[in-house]
C-alpha cells in the first residue's frame, strides 16, 4: 500500500477522533452529556488494552505460550474487588478533589509535596518507555504495510520522522482536549468519548483479523490446533509449561491486578473521569468481557503465524498485520493497521494527560508557588500559567517518549517494556492499599517504602535494559555491581529460577512493604497526617459529615483568600464562589476573617487545579496557622463525633417527645369521643326505658281510675302492661350484656358445636312467629360444614336476633326467608336473607352500632331495642369472626356472619 495513502488514512482517522471529541463536548454543553452513560465509562477503561495487547499478545503467545493471559486474568480477578477498593478511591478523590495518583498518595500522607514529587518521577520513569513503545508500534506497523507495496521510499521519507510527526499530532490533540479546563476535576468528556470510540475500533479490528486467520486462512480453531500440535515447539505454547513456571503466573497476575488500577491512564479514566460510582456496576462485568473478546483469537493467530512464516521470517509481534498482507487483503490490512493505531493513540493520549497533570501539579507548581518572583509576575493570571505548564509538559512527555523510542525502545519487544511499566506502578500498591485501610500507615513509611521499592525496580529491570542499549557495561549483568555476585540484577542475593519480572517484583515489593510497615509503626505522625489518614480510611463515614477543616485552626483574611482564588478563577467567579459559600453556611459577609470552613473549601477548590500539595502551600501562604498536636486532633475528631452522636440522640429524643405528644392528643380525642358516645348512649338508654315505662304507668293508672271499664278493654290494657314490662326487662338485660362485652368482661363458654344444629333449634323456637305471618322459611345447610369450637348459647342469640329481625321486616303472606350455611376455605358462613324493605346504604354500617340513631337524631330506629345487632356483632367478634349486611332498599337484606374453623 502506498505510504501516502497510509498517511492520509491515519490523518483521516485522527480527524475523525477530533470530530468525536469535539462533538461530545458540544453535546455536553447542550446538557446531553455522553459520559453519564456507564457503557462509555466501561469502554474507556479498555484503554488498558494498548498496542501491546493488539500486536504484543500474539508475539508473547508465540514465545511464552498462554502466559500472556496473566495480563488479563489479573484485572478480571480484580474487578469484583473494585467495589471495595476503587469505589473508595473514587469517593476520596471526589471529596478531596484529587486528580492524579501522585496527588492521591501525597494527599493521603499529610499532603506531602515530597511524596508527590517521588510518585511523579516514578510514573515518568516507568511510563515514558511505555509511551515510547506505542510510538514504535505505530511506526513499525506503518513501515510493514508501506513496504509490502514495494514503496521503498517510505524509509527515506518517513523513517525517523513518522514517529515524530505522530507525536506532534497527538500532542496537539491532547493539548486541545486535555487542557481546556483548568480545574482538572472537571472532566475531559470529549477525550473520554474519543477513547471509548477507539476501544470499539480496536476490538472490531482485532476480531475481524482473528476471524480471518482462523476461519478463512485456516479451517477454524480445530484445524489450527491440529496442525500446530504436529510441531513440538508450537505444542508448548498452548499447554502449561512443566518447568516450574507457576510462581511466574502468580507474580504476573498480581502485577496486572495493581496495574489496572494504578497505571496513570487507568487512574485517569477509572477514577478522575468517573462521573458516577454506580458505573462500576456495569464496568465490573463489561470490562472483563471486553478483555475476553479481544483475547479469543490471540492463540490461533499466533499459531497461524508460526505455521505460515517458518524460520522467523517475520517478527511474531507483527503477525496480526503480516497474515492479511500475505493473502493480499488490502482492506483488512488497513483495518488492522487502524486498529493498532487506535490502540496506541488512545494509550498515548490518556497517559500523557495523566502525566502532564502530575508534572504540573506535583513537580512544577510547588516550585512556582515558593518563588515570590514568579507569583508576582503572573499575578492575577495563575490559571493561564497552570495551563501553559500543562501544555508544555504534554509536549515534553511526548518528546521524551520519542527520544526514548529513538535511543532504546528499538531493542525490545512490546511486552517486555510494558512489564517494566507495570512493575513501576506496582510500587504504589502498599502506600495506596495501606493508606485506604490502615490508619497507622504514615508518610515516613510510604516514602521509604516507595524509594526502596523503586530503587530495586530500577536496578533489576531498567538498568539491564539500558545496558542492552549500551549505556552501562555488560559486566553489571554478568558479575553484579562492582563485581559483587550477590548484586547481579537478575538474581539478587542469589535468587534464581524466576523470570526477570517476577524476580524484580518479589524483591521490590518485599522491601517496599517491609519498609512501609516498619516505619509506619515506628515513627510519629503529624496532625495533618492523622487528619488525612482518618478521612481516607473512614471516607464513607466522613464524606458527608466532617469537613477536613474541622482540624484547621488559624487565621486567614477573606481579602487574601479572594486574591488567591481570583488568580485561578478570575475575579467575578471568585466573588460568586465566596458569596454562595457564605449563603450556604450562613456566614456573615462583613466578617473579614475567613471561617475555617471557607479556608478548607477554597483549599479543595485549589487542589482541583494545582493538586493537594500545592494547594496546601498556597493556603499556608495566606494564613497564619497554629500548630495542633496529634492529641488535640484526636480530641477534636472525637468531640465532633460525640457532638454528632449527642446531636443524633437529642434529635431522637425530640422526635420521641413529639410522637408521645401526638399520641396523647389522639388518646384525648378518643376519650372525648368515647365520653360523648357514652353520654349519647346513656340518654338513649334513658329514652328507651322511658317509653315502655310511660305506657305501663298510663295504662295502669287508667285501669286504676276506671273500675267500670269494659272487661275486654281492661284485659287488653293489662296485657299490654305485661308486654311492656317484658320489653323493659329485656332492654335492661341487653344494656347490661353490652356493657359486659364492651368492658371485655364477657367470656365465651366454648364447646364443640354444630352451627346447623343451632340454626335448627332457633327455627324451632321461632316457628310460631313464622307461621303467624305466613312467611316461607327455607334452610339450606352445607353438609360439608365441620363442627367448630364456639359458645353455643351466644351463637344461638345471634341467630335468634337475625331471624327475628328478618321476621319482623317481612310482610305477612309475601315474606320469604332463606337461611344458609357455606363452608369455604376453613370458614363457615351463615346467612339470613329476607325479602323485606331493605336497608339504605348509608345505614348499613351504622346498624351494628348500639342505638345507631344516637349519632343522628333525625333517624328513628326501626322497632326493636336497637341493641340486638350491636350485641350480635360483639359475639361474632369474640369468636374472631365477622358480621356484615348486604342490602338494597326494596329488595330485602342479607345478614351474614363468618367464623373460622380453627
Amino acid at each position: 500500500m502506498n505510504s501516502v495513502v497510509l498517511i492520509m488514512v491515519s490523518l483521516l482517522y485522527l480527524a475523525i477522533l477530533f470530530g468525536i471529541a469535539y462533538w461530545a463536548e458540544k453535546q455536553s454543553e447542550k446538557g446531553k452529556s455522553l459520559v453519564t452513560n456507564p457503557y462509555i465509562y466501561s469502554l474507556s477503561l479498555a484503554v488498558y488494552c494498548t498496542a501491546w495487547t493488539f500486536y504484543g499478545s500474539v508475539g508473547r503467545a508465540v514465545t511464552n505460550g498462554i502466559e500472556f493471559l496473566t495480563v488479563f486474568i489479573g484485572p478480571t480477578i480484580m474487578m469484583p474487588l473494585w467495589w471495595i477498593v476503587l469505589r473508595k478511591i473514587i469517593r476520596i478523590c471526589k471529596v478531596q478533589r484529587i486528580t492524579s495518583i501522585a496527588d492521591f498518595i501525597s494527599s493521603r500522607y499529610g499532603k506531602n509535596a515530597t511524596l508527590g514529587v517521588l510518585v511523579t518521577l516514578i510514573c515518568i520513569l516507568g511510563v515514558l518507555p511505555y509511551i515510547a513503545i506505542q510510538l514504535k508500534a505505530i511506526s513499525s506497523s506503518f513501515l510493514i504495510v508501506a513496504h509490502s507495496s514495494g514503496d521503498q521510499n517510505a524509509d527515506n521519507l518517513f523513517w525517523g520522522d513518522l514517529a515524530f510527526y505522530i507525536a506532534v499530532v497527538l500532542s496537539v490533540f491532547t493539548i486541545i482536549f486535555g487542557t481546556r479546563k483548568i480545574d482538572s476535576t472537571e472532566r475531559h468528556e470529549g477525550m473520554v468519548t474519543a477513547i471509548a470510540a477507539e476501544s470499539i475500533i480496536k476490538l472490531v479490528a482485532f476480531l475481524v483479523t482473528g476471524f480471518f486467520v482462523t476461519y478463512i486462512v485456516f479451517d477454524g480453531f480445530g484445524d489450527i490446533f491440529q496442525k500446530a500440535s504436529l510441531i513440538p515447539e508450537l505444542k508448548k505454547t498452548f499447554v502449561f509449561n512443566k518447568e516450574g513456571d507457576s510462581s511466574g503466573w502468580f507474580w504476573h497476575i498480581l502485577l496486572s491486578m495493581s496495574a489496572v488500577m494504578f497505571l496513570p491512564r487507568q487512574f485517569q479514566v477509572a477514577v478522575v473521569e468517573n462521573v458516577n460510582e454506580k458505573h462500576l456496576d456495569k464496568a465490573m462485568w463489561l470490562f472483563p468481557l471486553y478483555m475476553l473478546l479481544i483475547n479469543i483469537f490471540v492463540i490461533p493467530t499466533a499459531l497461524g503465524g508460526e505455521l505460515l512464516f517458518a524460520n522467523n521470517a517475520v517478527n511474531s509481534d507483527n503477525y496480526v498485520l503480516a497474515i492479511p498482507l500475505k493473502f493480499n487483503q488490502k482492506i483488512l490490512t488497513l483495518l488492522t493497521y487502524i486498529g493498532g493505531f487506535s490502540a496506541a493513540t488512545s494509550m498515548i493520549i490518556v497517559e500523557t494527560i495523566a502525566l502532564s497533570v502530575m508534572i504540573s501539579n506535583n513537580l512544577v507548581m510547588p516550585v512556582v508557588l515558593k518563588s515570590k518572583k514568579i507569583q508576582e509576575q503572573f499575578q492575577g493570571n495563575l490559571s493561564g500559567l497552570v495551563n501553559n505548564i500543562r501544555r508544555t509538559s504534554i509536549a515534553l512527555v511526548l518528546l521524551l517518549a520519542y527520544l526514548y523510542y529513538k535511543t532504546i525502545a528499538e531493542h525490545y519487544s512490546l511486552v517486555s517494556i510494558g512489564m517494566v511499566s507495570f512493575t513501576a506502578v506496582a510500587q504504589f500498591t502498599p502506600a495506596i492499599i495501606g493508606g485506604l485501610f490502615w490508619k497507622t500507615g504514615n508518610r515516613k513509611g510510604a516514602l521509604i517504602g516507595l524509594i526502596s521499592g523503586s530503587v530495586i525496580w530500577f536496578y533489576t529491570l531498567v538498568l539491564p535494559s539500558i545496558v542492552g542499549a549500551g549505556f552501562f557495561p555488560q559486566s553489571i549483568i554478568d558479575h553484579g555491581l562492582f563485581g559483587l555476585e550477590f548484586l547481579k540484577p537478575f538474581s539478587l542475593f542469589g535468587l534464581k529460577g524466576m523470570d526477570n519480572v517476577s524476580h524484580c517484583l518479589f524483591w521490590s515489593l518485599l522491601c517496599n512493604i517491609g519498609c512501609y510497615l516498619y516505619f509506619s509503626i515506628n515513627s510519629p505522625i503529624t496532625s495533618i497526617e492523622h487528619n488525612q489518614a482518618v478521612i481516607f480510611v473512614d471516607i464513607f463515614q466522613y464524606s458527608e459529615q466532617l469537613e477536613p477543616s474541622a482540624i484547621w485552626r488559624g487565621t486567614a483574611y477573606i481579602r487574601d483568600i479572594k486574591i488567591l482564588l481570583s488568580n485561578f478563577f478570575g475575579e467575578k467567579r471568585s466573588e460568586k464562589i465566596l458569596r454562595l459559600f457564605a449563603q450556604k453556611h450562613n456566614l456573615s459577609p462583613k466578617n473579614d476573617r475567613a471561617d475555617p470552613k471557607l479556608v478548607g473549601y477554597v483549599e479543595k477548590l485549589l487542589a482541583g487545579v494545582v493538586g493537594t500539595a500545592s494547594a496546601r502551600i498556597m493556603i499556608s501562604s495566606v494564613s497564619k496557622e497554629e500548630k495542633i498536636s496529634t492529641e488535640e486532633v484526636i480530641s477534636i475528631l472525637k468531640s465532633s463525633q460525640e457532638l454528632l452522636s449527642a446531636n443524633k440522640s437529642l434529635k431522637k429524643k425530640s422526635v420521641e417527645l413529639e410522637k408521645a405528644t401526638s399520641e396523647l392528643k389522639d388518646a384525648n380525642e378518643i376519650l372525648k369521643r368515647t365520653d360523648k358516645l357514652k353520654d349519647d348512649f346513656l340518654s338513649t338508654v334513658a329514652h328507651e326505658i322511658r317509653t315502655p315505662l310511660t305506657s305501663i304507668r298510663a295504662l295502669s293508672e287508667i285501669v286504676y281510675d276506671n273500675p267500670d271499664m269494659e272487661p275486654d278493654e281492661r284485659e287488653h290494657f293489662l296485657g299490654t302492661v305485661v308486654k311492656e314490662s317484658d320489653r323493659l326487662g329485656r332492654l335492661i338485660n341487653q344494656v347490661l350484656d353490652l356493657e359486659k362485652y364492651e368492658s371485655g368482661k364477657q367470656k365465651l363458654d366454648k364447646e364443640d358445636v354444630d352451627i346447623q344444629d343451632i340454626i335448627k333449634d332457633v327455627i324451632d323456637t321461632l316457628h310460631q312467629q313464622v307461621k303467624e305471618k305466613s312467611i316461607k322459611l327455607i334452610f339450606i345447610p352445607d353438609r360439608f360444614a365441620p363442627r367448630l369450637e364456639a359458645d353455643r348459647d351466644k351463637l344461638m342469640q345471634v341467630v335468634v336476633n337475625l331471624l327475628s329481625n328478618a321476621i319482623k321486616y317481612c310482610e305477612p303472606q309475601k315474606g320469604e326467608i332463606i337461611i344458609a350455611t357455606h363452608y369455604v376455605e376453613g370458614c363457615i358462613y351463615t346467612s339470613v336473607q329476607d325479602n323485606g324493605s331493605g336497608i339504605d346504604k348509608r345505614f348499613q354500617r351504622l346498624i351494628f352500632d348500639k342505638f345507631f340513631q344516637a349519632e343522628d337524631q333525625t333517624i328513628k330506629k326501626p322497632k326493636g331495642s336497637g341493641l340486638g345487632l350491636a350485641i350480635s356483632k360483639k359475639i361474632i367478634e369474640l369468636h374472631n369472626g365477622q358480621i356484615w349486611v348486604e342490602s338494597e332498599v326494596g329488595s330485602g337484606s342479607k345478614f351474614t356472619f363468618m367464623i373460622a374453623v380453627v
Partner: protein
Amino acid sequence: MKELIKVLIVDDEPSILMSLEFLMKKEGYQVFIARDGSEAMDIIEKEVPSIILLDIMMPNVDGYEVCYHVKNSLRFEHIKVVFLSAKNKESDMEKGYSVGADLYVTKPFSTRTLVSKVNALAINVVSGSAS
C-alpha cells in the same frame, strides 16, 4: 261543648296511643290519631284540630317539624300544641318551646295531671272561639 273540640294524638308507640286515646275520649273530645309526623300533617290539613298531643321522636317527620309548621301558618297558628316526650333535658324543652309549643310534658306522665292540663287548654279554646 267538648265534643266540638278536636284533639289530635300523634305517637309511634301503639300502647301510648292506646292510653291517650282512652283518656281523651273519656273526657269527651273528638279524637284523631296519627302514627307519625306526615300522617299528622294530613289530618291537621283536613280536620284543623284545636289541640295536638305530639310526640317528638318519630320516623320521617318528627314532632318539632310538625309543631313548627303549625305555628308558622296563619290557618293553624291558633292550634294548641302539647309536646309529650321522653326527652327530658332542659335543652330539649327549650327547643320545644322555641318552635312554638304551648306545653311540654315529659314521659312518663301522670294521666290525671295531663288530662287537667289539656282541659285547661280546652277552656281557652272554647272562650277564644266564643269571643
